[in-house]
């Protein structure tokens, strides 16, 4: 069987960054496997601007952002295969993929980085009430049809969910000639970035209804009507609050989920993000298998995906050189009060210059303290005036703070001030 040092599954932002960084850290024998016919992943269809402010200090569109990494991949002569879907991986890191040129190939890798991105939650996952006719479409699919192939999937559109892709698509559809009637969000707050509500909805007078969701889709062959109802605190529909919209399309922007079904077969420990549990090296519980980007936890800004990809690339290089070991004697990081999840979920080694923790809050909060505790003692705390679920929070613990972790537990939680 052919051997390769590092296989990177997914050639999007995370995968390309991981590959570039691994190469720079001395791994010469890398292969990127990309299932689509271009490198760049989802950014290929994200033609709006706003990418790269952290990474390049300028505002780029998705294709512009990705092209800078494609260029580096080419310049560094990192091999990649397009239209190559990984069919299977094993615990001992045999990767099987398929494409039309090589057929089915089995490779033995020293390390694997998962950079497979995420997928969109669909109507079936939320038991969307009513008809399952045509015209119920996820925002990303509508984006692909519109931005890549040039087709409007809807002309009179109701959007469910205020996630960023939904908001971005509200503007795109409007500019391209569709009528977006409203955006409905089941939560009492938006799940998108504030600036997207401003520039994608407010600019076009598209109303955003909070605490409201679809109580029925009506339509025989194609969507004909969507009924929105107010929900109470328990997310139950309140009778008598129905609003009826005549439309041909219900666009769903109801969440993104890490796409890591290949990990199911190898007993990888999964976290509440639906991605793998990882340690401070972004390594899963399977020796030498790393994860980064949206397949680990869904990010809201691609610049941070790139950064996480680099981190995985660096760590995979260390692993290949035998410089890190999965000891399974780790500190468990748990999400406490008010925190939805924390990455990493485990710490192998406290001997870092610093360690960044990424998390999201469960609901919007004002004026809180984010407290890191180990063994009931405070390790570090950070004051934040506003935290909202749609923004991933990153907090860095320095060497001194890390040294205060004295037990096998670290909890991150919110405290009122």
């Amino acid at each position, binding site marked *: 069987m052919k051997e390769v040092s590092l296989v990177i599954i997914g050639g999007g932002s995370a995968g390309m960054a991981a590959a570039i960084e691994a190469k720079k850290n001395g791994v010469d024998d890398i292969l990127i496997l990309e299932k689509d016919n271009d490198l760049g992943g989802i950014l290929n269809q994200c033609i709006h601007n706003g990418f790269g402010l952290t990474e390049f200090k300028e505002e780029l569109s998705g294709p512009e952002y990705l092209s800078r990494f494609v260029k580096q991949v080419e310049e560094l002569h990192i091999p990649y295969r397009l239209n190559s879907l990984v069919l299977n991986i094993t615990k001992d890191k045999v990767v099987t993929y*398929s494409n039309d*040129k090589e057929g089915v190939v089995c490779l033995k890798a020293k390390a694997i980085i998962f950079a497979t991105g995420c997928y969109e939650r669909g109507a079936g996952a939320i038991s*969307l009430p009513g008809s399952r006719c045509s015209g119920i479409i996820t925002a990303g699919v509508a984006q692909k049809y*519109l931005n890549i192939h*040039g087709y409007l*999937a809807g002309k009179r559109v109701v959007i469910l969910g205020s996630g960023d892709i939904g908001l971005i698509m509200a503007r795109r559809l409007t500019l391209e000639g569709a009528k977006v009637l409203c955006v409905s969000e089941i939560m009492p707050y938006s799940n998108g970035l504030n600036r997207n509500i401003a520039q994608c909805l407010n600019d076009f007078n598209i109303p955003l209804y909070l605490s409201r969701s679809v109580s029925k889709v009506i339509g025989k062959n194609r969507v004909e009507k969507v009924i929105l109802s107010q929900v109470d605190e328990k997310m139950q529909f309140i009778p008598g609050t129905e609003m009826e919209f005549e439309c041909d399309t219900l666009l769903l922007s109801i969440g993104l989920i890490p796409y890591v079904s290949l990990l199911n077969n190898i007993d990888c420990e999964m976290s509440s993000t639906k991605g793998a549990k990882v340690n401070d090296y972004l390594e899963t519980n399977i020796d030498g298998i790393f994860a980064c980007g949206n397949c680990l936890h869904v990010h809201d800004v691609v610049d941070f995906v790139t950064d996480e990809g680099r981190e995985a690339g660096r760590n995979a290089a260390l692993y290949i050189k035998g410089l890190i070991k999965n000891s399974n004697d780790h500190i468990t990081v748990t999400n406490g009060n008010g925190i939805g999840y924390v990455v990493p979920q485990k710490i192998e080694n406290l001997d870092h210059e610093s360690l960044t923790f990424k998390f999201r809050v469960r609901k919007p909060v004002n004026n809180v303290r984010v407290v890191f505790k180990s063994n009931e003692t405070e390790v570090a705390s950070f004051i934040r005036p506003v935290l909202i679920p749609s923004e991933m929070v990153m907090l860095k613990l320095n060497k001194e703070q890390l040294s205060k972790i004295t037990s096998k537990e670290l909890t991150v939680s919110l405290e009122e001030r």
Partner: protein
Amino acid sequence: MCMYDFIIIGAGVVGAFIARKLSRYETNVLLIEKENDVGNVTSNANSAIIHSGYDPVPGTLKAKLNVLGNKMYDQVCSDLDVKMEKIGSLTVATSEEQMKMFDELLIRSKVNGVEVRLVNQDELRKMEPNISPNALGALFAPSAGIIDPFNLVIHCVENAVDNGVTLKLNEEVSSIEEKDGVFFVKTNKNTYQGKIVINAAGLGSEKVARMIEDVDWNLIPRKGEYFVLDHYKKGFVNHTIFPLPSAKGKGVLVSPTSSGDYIVGPSSEPVEDASDFSTDLFTLNNVKAQALDLVPNIPFVHQIRVFSGIRPTTTRHDFIIESSDKYKNFINVAGIESPGFVSSPAIAEYVFDNIISKLVSLKEKANYNPKVRPYVCLNDLSSEERNFYINKNKDYGTMICSCEKVSLGEIKDLFTRSVPPRSIKGVKRRVRAGYGKCQGGFCSPKVALILAKKLNCSPLDINYDNIGSNVLLEEVKK
């Protein structure tokens, strides 16, 4: 106007098996379907279980044809290249009172001629580690199975067409008139003449029956809502797990499917409108609660789909398989509710032996071939075997659906068949592209473009399902 010896109305599982049975003989057969694909209504949305047949009331057609049908399936699935697995069913009791009901069911099994045995709590727990701690015992029926219901009907009609049956899709029968022993069957597009008409119109069977005479039965459409969970892991449940049957039906089951997913359902409520396939949260929550009683930790986080199916129950509470009172050449095959799917091949035999053969005498074809041309299903193959196919056709190497791992070659193959897909759903039902975790998020645009090319039309004309269910509404930048 062409004259047919047989006109079968409805290409669901029942019409499909009858058409295939008739295709053995020197006779010309027309199969009319109102939908854009075969097996698209009740056959498309059910539990996809090959029931063992232990529980229908002995002496009924249901009991007889279920048991016969079950025995036919090994051959049927081998001939038609359809995935089926006899994993067995467990009917589980959760109280002492329910345990007592097994006595009656054991008698029924014996009379119906179905092998079953009682399984005690310990053994049950070994067979199903995730079963409720309240489960005290179960009736195990090893002959029960799970099947790919979509390809069963599609391949069955394909085989019938390969053997000479004419299939018309998107034609709905609007009236039938009889004149001098010939039926004039009028659809939205044509009028066909037939000597013998077989009404296998499923949910439309009462309407079709009443086109020629009054009938003494009524159709009561009964809706069942289901959950589908992704194939995240094998072995969460290993058998089809039922509660004890009640007057309302077989109850909410939890089962693996032939594609490795898990299915949970159905509810069972009579509905007014047999064309309303909507689902609702109240019913689904009920289904969930009932399922959790049997299997407490069902991982609904892996839920990828909900759907509803409507079963054509009738006031007779048994299958109606008989000639009309007025015209012996008009045969109603109606009320084929559960266990209709498993019974269908036996229903076709029954219709032939008990009715058709008494009306006409048919000669067997010399060149009848009971088998469909084998399908290439790469997921069933080793890497070496895959490469054998990829060497012959590189499209087998290009993957289109990443969740279900379906290749371009497998999709293109469908268009070389005699019942090719005409919609995104048609592709999905045949090769499972779009049936996985992302529900077509990644592959549906690719499939739409492949379809447009193969059907030689604009992507704007591509339907999700029936005509009028267009996916795309306008081309921009024209």
